């Protein structure tokens, strides 16, 4: 009797471990496996084979933004397939653990990419703290990284407050990291200007999730908003994993007369739970960076979805008439409304930049598979490449020479994010 119960308990425990392992990274493995095998099957006949990988949060809370971005990149690769007899395939990775992007998981994924000689470049990551863990690994293998949505300024540019400094992320001393999004030195200030000039408010309460991205964008917001003559009524940096009650912060904001809230957070770091808890306490606009411009955020906000504003560090592709045919073709393959998120076409553009660089590198290499360093050099040499979200060239840091910042607001019932305006940023 005793023994039977014991074995039953251990079976249950084993089940628990399997379940938690699934939570860990099972989804990533599950989605990558078929792509890898199909890629291996086609190798035999071709002259050579290269893989463009991606690392994005494609399960959990951030899947609402990450998965469409991955689809955008996959779609771009599927448009080319082969070049001069060299097969090009796509291999997606997921950096989600327990529903949230995880820097360690991202680093493991990049380690896997690096150890696969066919991988010549990657699209991603989505989150700045993941990038911080991944860049050094990719750098030592000269793997070209191009992110659709990383915005932390310290990833590419040196400021006195940067820790780690961009050079510390690049042990070889050469740059391998590029992005198409405008950095937080643009994104935070953009919302500050929007609040000052468009919403005409002067007192804002600020919170952050205390992550690389959230805290960075909030800091940049605060600097510009104060320079605009505005007042920060109160500021809190939450340990988001353990905080569930944001009401003391909301009340402090109310007591101090805040006219808006700025959220340096994402939907995955409880950024929009704050919106839900504001109900009945403080009815003011809720503003934030690209991390809150998602459907998951609207779900979290419950019935308190009106009056929300967000910036997105990429142009709205639908505003670009030249992109219409690509958007239409994408919709053929991915017809659901949720298949298009803020960075879908930024993801498409990132993969397109890699493909363009790859083609030039293959040409330069006499039709043979180029080395990873040759691909990095080709990406660096990208010259005024016209794509769906802008025209891209890169400076020595890996930042786009010109980027676009777009504004969105919630409209209608049920609420949805609606494009408001956008402006170009030269750097």
């Amino acid at each position, binding site marked *: *009797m*005793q023994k039977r*119960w*014991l074995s*039953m*308990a251990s079976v*249950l*425990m084993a*089940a*628990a*471990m*399997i*379940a*938690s392992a*699934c*939570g860990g990274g099972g989804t990533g493995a599950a989605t990558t496996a078929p792509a890898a095998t199909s890629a291996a099957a086609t190798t035999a006949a071709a002259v050579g084979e290269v893989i463009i990988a991606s690392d994005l949060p494609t*399960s*959990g*809370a951030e899947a609402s933004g990450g998965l469409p971005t991955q689809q955008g990149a996959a779609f771009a690769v599927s448009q080319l397939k082969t070049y001069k007899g060299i097969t090009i395939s796509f291999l997606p990775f997921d950096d*989600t653990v*327990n*529903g*949230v992007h995880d820097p360690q998981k991202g680093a493991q994924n990049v380690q896997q990419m690096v150890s696969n000689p066919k991988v010549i470049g990657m699209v991603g990551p989505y989150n700045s703290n993941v990038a911080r863990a991944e860049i050094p690994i990719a750098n030592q293998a000269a793997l070209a990284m191009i992110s659709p949505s990383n915005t932390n300024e310290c990833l590419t540019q040196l400021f006195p407050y940067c820790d780690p400094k961009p050079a510390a992320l690049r042990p070889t001393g050469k740059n391998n990291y590029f992005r198409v999004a405008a950095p937080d030195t643009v994104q935070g200030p953009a919302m500050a200007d929007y609040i000052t000039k468009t919403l005409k408010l002067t007192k804002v309460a600020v919170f952050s999730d*205390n992550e690389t991205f959230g805290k960075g964008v909030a800091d940049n917001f605060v600097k510009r908003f104060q320079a605009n003559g505005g007042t920060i009524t109160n500021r*809190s*940096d*939450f*340990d988001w*994993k*353990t*905080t*569930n*009650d944001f*009401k*003391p*912060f909301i*009340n*402090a904001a109310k*007591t101090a007369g805040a006219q808006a809230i700025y959220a340096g957070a994402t939907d*995955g770091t*409880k950024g929009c*739970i704050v919106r*839900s*808890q504001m*109900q*009945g*306490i403080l009815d003011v606009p809720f503003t934030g960076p690209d991390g809150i411009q998602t459907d*998951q955020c609207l*779900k*979290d*906000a*419950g*019935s*308190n979805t009106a009056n929300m504003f967000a910036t997105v560090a990429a142009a709205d592709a639908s505003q670009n008439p030249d992109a219409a045919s690509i958007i239409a073709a994408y919709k053929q393959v991915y017809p659901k409304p949720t298949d298009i998120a803020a960075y879908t076409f930024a993801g498409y553009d990132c993969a397109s930049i890699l493909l363009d660089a790859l083609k030039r590198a293959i040409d330069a290499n006499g039709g043979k598979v180029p080395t990873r360093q040759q691909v990095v050099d080709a990406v660096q040499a990208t010259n005024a490449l016209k794509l769906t979200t802008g025209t891209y060239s890169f400076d020595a840091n890996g930042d786009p020479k010109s980027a676009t910042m777009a504004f969105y607001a919630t409209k209608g019932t049920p609420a949805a994010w609606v494009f408001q305006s956008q402006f170009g940023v030269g750097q």
Partner: protein
Amino acid sequence: MVSSVANARARLMAGTQGRILNATLILLIGIALVILATRVTTLSPAYFVQVVVYGLANGSIFALIALGYTMVYGIVELINFAHGDVFTLGGFISLWLLPIFGVTEGGTVTGFGLMVPLLAILVLSMVACAAVNVTIERVAYRPLRRAPRLTPLITAVGMSFVLEGIMFLWRGPFNLHYPNVLPPVSIELGGAGGPAITFKDVAVIAIAVVLMIALSLFVERTKLGKAMRATAQDRDAAELMGIDINRTIAATFFIGALLAGAGGMIFGLYFNTITFDQGFTAGLVAFTAAVFGGIGNIQGAALGGLVIGMIQELSDGYFDPAWTQVLIFAILVLVLVFRPTGILGMRVPEK
């Protein structure tokens, strides 16, 4: 193990060293209160009242969870790590039941007409959690009752993963929005703009207080409660006196989970968010509360929950919220060092 450390400490307390430890503790508390007072005076008194109200509500939820820890520890000396997840399960089950009972955010049934379905959901979630906890006790702890102390502890961790895994598979890994359905009624103290006591705050505190009073009446007045106390005191002697030990222990797990299940639902109603793994942190904090009040001591757990909940809100409201967790676990360490029997003293049999 805790109790042997406690005994050693208790002997130590008697001597000069004990007095020094106590004096240091009082000094530390004094310093903390002075720092808090200087921060409180910089902001308005209305804000202070508001934070205290939140602290009471938050503390009530922790008290409900802490009671389950303390009851189980008192009777079988097991730290039931799965308890935090039983609490989360209460939130998940009630979230699932809400639409079935026609309760939706912004739905047609609003105001006080909601109370009947909400109470029904509360009772169902409580009973479901209790059934789960009793099952866990039956399959994972009872067969190991005579095994070394570490064995059931490991199974408890395993059961915690089982429950988290089930909830993960059920609803996914992300933050779930819990409908904000309680009527948005509030009383503003001292006129408009003053600190507001909302229906939510009152409901949370009221449910917790009613349940805690019911629990203490049950333990003090009923035959089963008496059996629980007897079993906690000396299991073998209680068995010799004809008390059905298995039934009594199962009842303890049942009651502990009733409270945790209620805690899970009011947590959702209060904070409007639940996550499959929230029970891990909530459980640790509640465990700290149980230790703070003196593990095994029912009044102590209720007091500990309120104090820890209050400290959490004061820290979030007046200091950097990033340090709140550090503060709470620093308190756990301090209590274990300076007063291992907790504020109200442990109620664990000497062995």
